[in-house]
């Protein structure tokens, strides 16, 4: 479903109350947050909201006319079911504007228990085609879908036309090379995955070690990368390590780059994308403030004069400075990436 070009919404991450305020103050139309447990896909120590901060955050956004989405986007197993159910109830009772959900059982529960509550299909539900979206729309009345970061621009355009609900796409932040919700690499190595635990390559499994061959990063003892003194070391996200294939060592799965679609905004707007999502609930309030401000300015300029729109050099510099590996890419939106 294409959305009117003047309403492309900026959806920004809030890992805590200061970040939520930073995003709202810098011009986010909506912020998304999660609770302090494994019910969301950024289950990191010290991150996320309890009842008090969630209440304060929702009030802060609401007073300024912005919306708050609550991510409950991991997959509950029977032993944890009541925790997810409680998260849905809490978000509904707090007055969240929408839930971002991935699990069929949770959608079924939310749709029956809170029929008035908006549901957005999380990227973790891996909906990459109109039939899959139709499944969630017909069964649970989802009202928006967040697309996996694996589709090309042409594929996004096709989906905007054919989807029964508006489309949200990722614009900026870390890049998953795998289809979200369909990647078990992390649990294969550590026992914990985004689906089951809300974290990929969890910090508790990371070990750094100086060796005669260089600084090594390991994940549950699996060597993810090794650095010479002049190489900058990166967090050992499993798919972004260097490995040997055919006796050659390289980034065999994905380079440590991040996604930046600032230059694609006019195309995304013209095709009728409803919202641009910024990744990064784990990032600092300062990061959120800077990234949100740049995207606010870009969206405003694009809306006012899309034919004259060009990303400004100072925006790109500001984003480049905070990007992972200091390299950005169009990701899958740019077909050669695939």
């Amino acid at each position: 479903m294409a959305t009117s070009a003047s309403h492309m919404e900026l959806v920004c991450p809030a890992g805590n109350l200061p970040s939520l305020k930073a995003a709202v103050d810098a011009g986010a139309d909506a912020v998304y947050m999660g609770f302090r447990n494994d019910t969301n896909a950024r289950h990191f120590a010290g991150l996320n909201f309890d009842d008090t901060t969630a209440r304060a955050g929702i009030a802060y956004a609401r007073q300024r006319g912005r919306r708050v989405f609550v991510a409950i986007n991991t997959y509950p197993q029977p032993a944890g079911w009541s925790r997810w159910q409680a998260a849905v109830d809490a978000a509904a009772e707090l007055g969240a504007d929408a839930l971002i959900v991935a699990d069929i059982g949770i959608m079924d529960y939310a749709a029956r228990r809170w029929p008035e509550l908006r549901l957005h299909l999380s990227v973790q539900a891996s909906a990459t085609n109109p039939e899959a979206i139709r499944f969630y729309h017909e069964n649970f009345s989802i009202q928006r879908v967040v697309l996996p970061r694996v589709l090309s621009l042409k594929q996004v355009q096709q989906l905007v036309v054919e989807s029964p609900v508006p489309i949200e796409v990722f614009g900026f932040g870390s890049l998953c090379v795998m289809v979200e919700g369909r990647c078990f690499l992390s649990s294969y190595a550590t026992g914990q995955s985004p689906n089951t635990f809300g974290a990929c390559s969890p910090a508790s499994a990371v070990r750094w070690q100086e060796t005669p061959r260089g600084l090594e990063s390991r994940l549950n003892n699996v060597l993810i990368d090794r650095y010479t003194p002049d190489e900058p070391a990166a967090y050992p996200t499993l798919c972004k390590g260097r490995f040997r294939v055919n006796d050659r060592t390289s980034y065999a799965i994905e380079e440590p780059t991040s996604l930046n679609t600032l230059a694609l905004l006019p195309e995304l707007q013209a095709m009728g994308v409803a919202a641009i999502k910024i990744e990064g609930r784990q990032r600092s309030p300062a990061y959120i403030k800077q990234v949100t401000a740049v995207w606010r300015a870009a969206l405003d300029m694009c809306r006012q004069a899309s034919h004259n729109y060009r990303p400004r050099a100072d925006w790109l510099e500001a984003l480049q400075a905070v990007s992972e590996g200091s390299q950005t890419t169009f990701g899958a939106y740019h077909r050669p990436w695939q």
Partner: protein
Amino acid sequence: MTGLPRLSLGPVLYYWPREILLGFYERIAQSPVDIVYLGETVCSKRRALRGDDWLKLGEMLESCGKEVVLSSLTLLESASELGALKRLCDNGRFMIEANDMAAAQLLSGQHPFVCGPAVNLYNAGSLQVLARLGMKRWVLSVELSSTTLESLQQQRPAGLESEVFVFGRIPLAYSARCFTARAANLAKDDCGLCCIDHPDGLLLETRDQEPFLVLNGIQTQSAKTCNLVGALDDLRRLDVDILRISPQSDHTETVIQTFHDALHGQCSAEDAELRLQALVPTGSCNGYWHGGAGMDNRDPQAGRLD
């Protein structure tokens, strides 16, 4: 506990040449496997066999007493892939294994279907929704444990069959990118179908030369082979209906025979374990079943549930 679980053969996850595939299924027809899943689940560019070829193979296997299920593509992005999926769902003859919600949507209320391991069903609520829509059988997600399965079995809707992936390199991830092409310095659009050179996938090792993963086109698998032959007693106690063996280029019939013998008490679990250990390319694992990291390999005796 009711009867013995049946054995199934999952779809061939690799790109094998036409003659190899046809010969393989000729042999499978004579093996003691009960259910055969047929079709391409990984990449729509692989066309060693066309739709009609798969249907003919299905008829041949059915005439040899096998139940046949047609497996569908896992990552559907293009209109042509959806078109092929629709034709498959309308085949009018064989049940479909849905590996994406698109297939579940097309089959809902129309035909009974199986949900494959790439459909995320982690709780009873999810099972109930799909069962209402026509799901007859589901394959446990490869990352879930026996503890979770036990709860799911206790709460599963009446008549719903359960299937567990018990042998094979584990499908772990899907991407829009082709890692086999990337390793050969080829663009995905111009891959030359180079995955045909890797009948068990392309090994990825860590920099200290430990086998870790296997690249299979857009799919990433475990280097270690999942082997739950040591958990047969638990699988029976949990009333699992079907045990899935995933094809590998060599010894698949021996693997099937070994599971069959172990199930029928014709060899001990220990002997079966030893036999299978000799047949896997880079070691075995069973960690997911025991609730740990998938790559772990617990001693089946020590890890036995009570």
